[in-house]
């Protein structure tokens, strides 16, 4: 008997489609289908083995064209919350094998503006020129004011992650480095304190995962990776209200540390603590977010994140290697959702031990995350090769 229902759910398939700044000859549907073909090949499963689909707007088309109905479905753009929904649907017997997929191509074409998904037309932000970088900058500046976190510390995060992407053969920005913190600081300012190279890039691509039961996973060729824990913290809608560090209700739990309570729940589910984590596949929309997450999740004390990430601790061979494929800064950033799924895909790759670059030796526990305080939410998943 599993100690938590998630422990009976395994991720058995992972795939990335081609990733590029612009994918000629693709739209969002065709690139998503490419990722689905690849994830089926990864697991050796056929469409008739899939009885649940969570692929945002592609859920309906995939079920229709795969002819795998009647199927469980979820139409929300998939990221960690939807993976957890899929795991819950399997754990409660609504279905047994779920395909999760998303992709984006041909969406961001008006390059004089910031990407369309970064600038919702909400009445209290639209006329002030707000977009994702500015929202997250307001969080970072507050932390720098409170704790003295420095631009050099932010730049160290960005250089580390970009160097992971530099080395990764499938990263959109492969071979662009190597980068030093000074290179980051020398790039043009976008939204103070974020230089261009402190920020996510934009690209196109798709990815897919397959989840099934522990029992079914034993018959598949891939090494199963189990869900040890997962939970989600939200403080409201993204990019509509002031992204204040101290936003909180009567509980006192504040947006600045969004993700902390999801992490605590996740660690409890898996009977784990931060020191058990071998690899940190943290979401990296902006360099500061990595510093914030180490504090939020309890890897270090509040205000100490800036020092914590220095001296190689988060680089290859360090105590807590972070975002090992290059993340949204260098691997890919396909839109509103696909790159969030890619954090989990990389976590699975690390635990399978199949990373072509930056493989953490004998990695057994991976922590994956989505979101960030500038967007008023953070989602967390813990993955493992074994369950408690």
């Amino acid at each position: 008997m599993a100690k938590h229902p998630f422990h009976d759910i395994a991720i058995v398939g992972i795939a990335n489609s081609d990733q590029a700044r612009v994918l000629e000859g693709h739209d969002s549907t065709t690139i998503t289908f490419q990722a689905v073909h690849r994830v089926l090949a990864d697991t050796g499963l056929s469409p008739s083995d899939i009885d649940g689909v969570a692929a945002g707007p592609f859920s309906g088309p995939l079920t229709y064209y795969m002819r795998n109905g009647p199927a469980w479905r979820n139409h929300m753009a998939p990221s960690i919350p939807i993976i957890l929904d899929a795991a819950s649907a399997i754990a409660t017997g609504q279905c047994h094998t779920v395909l999760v997929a998303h992709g984006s191509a041909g969406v961001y074409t008006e390059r004089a503006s910031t990407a369309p998904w970064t600038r919702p037309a909400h009445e209290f932000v639209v006329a002030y020129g707000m977009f994702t970088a500015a929202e997250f900058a307001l969080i970072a500046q507050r932390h720098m004011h409170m704790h003295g976190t420095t631009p050099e510390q932010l730049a160290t995060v960005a250089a580390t992650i970009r160097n992971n992407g530099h080395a990764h053969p499938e990263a959109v920005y492969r071979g662009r480095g190597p980068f030093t913190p000074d290179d980051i600081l020398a790039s043009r300012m976008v939204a103070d304190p974020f230089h261009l190279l402190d920020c996510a890039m934009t690209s196109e691509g798709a990815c897919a995962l397959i989840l099934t039961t522990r029992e079914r996973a034993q018959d598949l060729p891939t090494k199963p990776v189990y869900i040890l824990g997962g939970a989600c913290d939200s403080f409201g809608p993204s990019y509509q209200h002031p992204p204040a560090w101290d936003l909180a209700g009567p509980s006192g739990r504040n947006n600045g540390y969004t993700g902390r309570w999801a992490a605590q729940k996740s660690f409890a589910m898996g009977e784990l603590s931060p020191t058990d984590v071998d690899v940190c596949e943290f979401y990296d929309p902006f360099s500061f977010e990595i510093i914030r997450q180490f504090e939020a999740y309890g890897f270090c004390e509040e205000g100490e994140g800036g020092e914590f990430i220095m001296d190689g601790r988060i680089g290859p061979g360090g105590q807590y290697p972070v975002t090992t494929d290059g993340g949204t800064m260098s691997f890919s950033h396909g839109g509103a959702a696909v790159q969030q799924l890619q954090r989990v895909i990389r976590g699975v790759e690390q635990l399978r031990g199949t990373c072509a670059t930056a493989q953490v030796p004998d990695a057994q526990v991976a922590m994956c995350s989505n979101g960030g305080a500038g967007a008023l939410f953070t989602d967390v998943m813990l993955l493992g090769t074994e369950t408690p």
Partner: protein
Amino acid sequence: MSEILQPQSPGIPLPVPTLFSQPYWDGCQVGELRYQRCRDCGVITMDPAPACSACFSPDLDWEVSAGQGEVYSWTTVWRPQTPAFTVPYVAVIVTLDEDFWLLANLINCPVDAVHVGMRVKTTFVELSEEITLPYFEPAD
């Protein structure tokens, strides 16, 4: 001499008021920064909402802020959201003295003068027949 921040020109994307935010935008047109206070628990709700963000009561009153406050956080933006915006511009979250946050842009201030704790006050700029935008400027 550092550049002095200016309001944006007409042509930027403008707010579309909702049923419950319209009184806020009406206030801006007459030079008032309006906010809601709960008749049940007395706590301020901002941005405008259909219910109190402390006790969720639907019974909210409109009051007028003195428009004075201090910068809670800031960012100077050098890459515009769209080409309609002129850079640099500074986004600030201001803690008003009545104790609520408002996000806006800072103007009439040297670009490198903004800092957390800076005292600011509201100023209003008409951008269309329907929309007058609140901005902040240095208090003295």
